[in-house]
């Protein structure tokens, strides 16, 4: 982080705090900072969300398009992630400066959403072997205040939860060519099932322990961080009555990667993954509640827009 100067004593203070599970802003090692989430913010997208976590600001838009499925996966749709680091976020992103970061984030998302346990691509199928939906998930980084991966994954899941796909009214076959007729009614649509969508949790190694959602000061005390993608629990994305009838699902890792020039000991690594699981579970629960509330407000026209980028 540019312009941040920490003396060695300040660093020692932070490291000792982390050791005792108590951070300088009063959080414990698995607590996130408060965040703001709003869905349905872009009118021309099928689904969108805006997330603000401390100083990080993310806007996600989902566009849908009809495409031909791959011949070896005739029954599956397609997902494509694109991250845009605009120079508004930090001057470092100017020109091609943000390209590497953007690539690494979109790569991580792609890996995390790869497994059918994380996102079932079958729901994007229209006509097996002929037509499927392709979702373009565009992620715009408006302000960069650290902990990008976590914020982006939350924003993506929220935007996908918000995505509406129009129903197909009729299919005409004309000598092998498919002609689809989509419903014109904007409310005649289906929502996607993204309840098991993965959340990325970045664990920053400070001393022998790891913290989630590090502040800029904490980031400067650490040389390596672990990114763990953990699938969501569908229970959190339905109302309480429905959740009672649902079977318990085991959370799974759908992606693990490392960032930064350092290395970790095997024991720290194991602890970090377990810690990431706990953090992801809390985060997923909170996200599920917020998204359900948003959807209810949306369907009953009670939604009050809190303004865009205030």
């Amino acid at each position, binding site marked *: 982080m540019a312009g941040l100067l920490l003396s060695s004593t300040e660093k020692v203070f932070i490291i000792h705090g982390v050791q005792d599970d108590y951070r300088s802003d009063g959080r414990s090692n698995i607590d996130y900072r408060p965040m703001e989430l709003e869905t349905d913010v872009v009118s021309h997208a099928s689904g969108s969300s805006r997330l603000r976590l401390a100083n990080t600001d993310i806007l996600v838009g989902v566009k849908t398009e009809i495409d031909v499925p791959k011949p*070896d996966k005739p029954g599956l749709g397609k997902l494509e992630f694109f991250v845009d680091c605009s120079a508004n976020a930090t001057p470092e992103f100017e020109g091609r400066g943000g390209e590497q970061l953007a*690539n690494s984030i979109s*790569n991580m998302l792609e890996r995390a959403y790869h497994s059918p346990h994380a996102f079932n691509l*079958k729901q994007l199928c229209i006509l097996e072997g002929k037509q499927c939906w392709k979702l373009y998930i565009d992620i715009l980084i408006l302000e960069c205040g650290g902990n990008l991966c976590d914020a982006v994954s939350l924003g993506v899941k929220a935007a996908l939860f918000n995505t509406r796909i129009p129903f197909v009214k009729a299919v005409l076959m004309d000598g092998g060519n498919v002609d689809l007729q989509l419903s014109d009614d904007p409310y005649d649509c289906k929502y996607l099932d993204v309840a098991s969508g993965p959340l990325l949790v970045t664990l920053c190694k400070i001393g022998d322990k790891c913290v989630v959602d590090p502040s800029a000061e904490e980031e400067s005390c650490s040389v390596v961080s672990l990114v763990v993608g953990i699938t969501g629990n569908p229970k959190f994305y339905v109302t309480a009555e429905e959740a009672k009838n649902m079977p318990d699902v*085991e959370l799974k890792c*759908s*992606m693990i990667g490392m960032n930064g020039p350092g*290395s970790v000991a095997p024991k720290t690594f194991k602890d970090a993954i377990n810690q990431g699981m706990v953090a992801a579970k809390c985060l997923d629960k909170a996200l599920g509640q917020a998204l359900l509330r948003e959807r209810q407000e949306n369907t009953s026209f009670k939604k009050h827009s809190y303004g865009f980028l205030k």
Partner: protein
Amino acid sequence: MPLDYRRFNGPEDSVSYKIYTKDYIKPYEERYNELLDENGLRKDGRALNEARSMFARTDMVSQAKGSSYVEFKKTKVVCSVFDPREIPHQNEFSQLGQIFCEVKFAPFSCPRKRRPHAPDNEERALSVALRQALEPTVCRHLFPNYQIDVFIYILEHDGSCLAAAINAAGLALADAAVPMYDIITSCSLAVIGDKVFVDPTEAEEHVAKTSLEDSNINHGIVTMSFLSELKQISDFTQVGSMDVECITKAMEVLEVECEKLVPNFQRIMVMNVIHNFEQRKRLDDEAKEREEALNKKMEEWKQLMSAG
């Protein structure tokens, strides 16, 4: 998508005929059943927990400072390391030296498809993973404001190419006499259900990556690079879907496999040193012989001169 104009590409919406062949559209179950025979052995006769035998040597590329060639049966990788040079297009002074990695697939290296000339997503991801793995092991403070170039060329890809690339790069860096903290080794494994395939081939990786939608089994690929003397993990990448237990188990297996490679690497490096010494000795001996012969001639001439 930028097209390669030096070759005939065909119409824009054309696809390779191979994707309609029986081999390509085989269903998942058939692919899975093909991996193991009735004795529980893999296609190439290995047991599940048996890694492929390795062939490795250094001094492949004479122009490079250090180079290596690593072969795990059908996975073949060449690596070359060049002298440190000043970091291009950089305004600020960087305290630590940088490692620039580039992984490239040969156009003919992969089954099913031809690799394009322009670097694609997978190659870029591999380059990033390689740099992540190498950074902790190189003493970067010894060459501030300089970068070391590490180039990997994958000649043939038959699974676990990242592991092979990291192994090759570690060996080439050592061959180039770049100061390092430890020997770096790497290994990967594929998980399908309760079976763990150590050092998977391409076919095994392919099945592990794609799983049936409705089943809830563990599947995926894990690659880990390890500094065995320091007991540190320098890179860990996982794709697929696994529970925590499976990951910890994979980690333990990979740790053992990575350590198994270390004696081989040490042997190659020691052999290199011995080889160099012998060569030096031979050169010295030859030089001495020439000098003696010259001295003899000189004596003869001197005698002739004094006599004449």
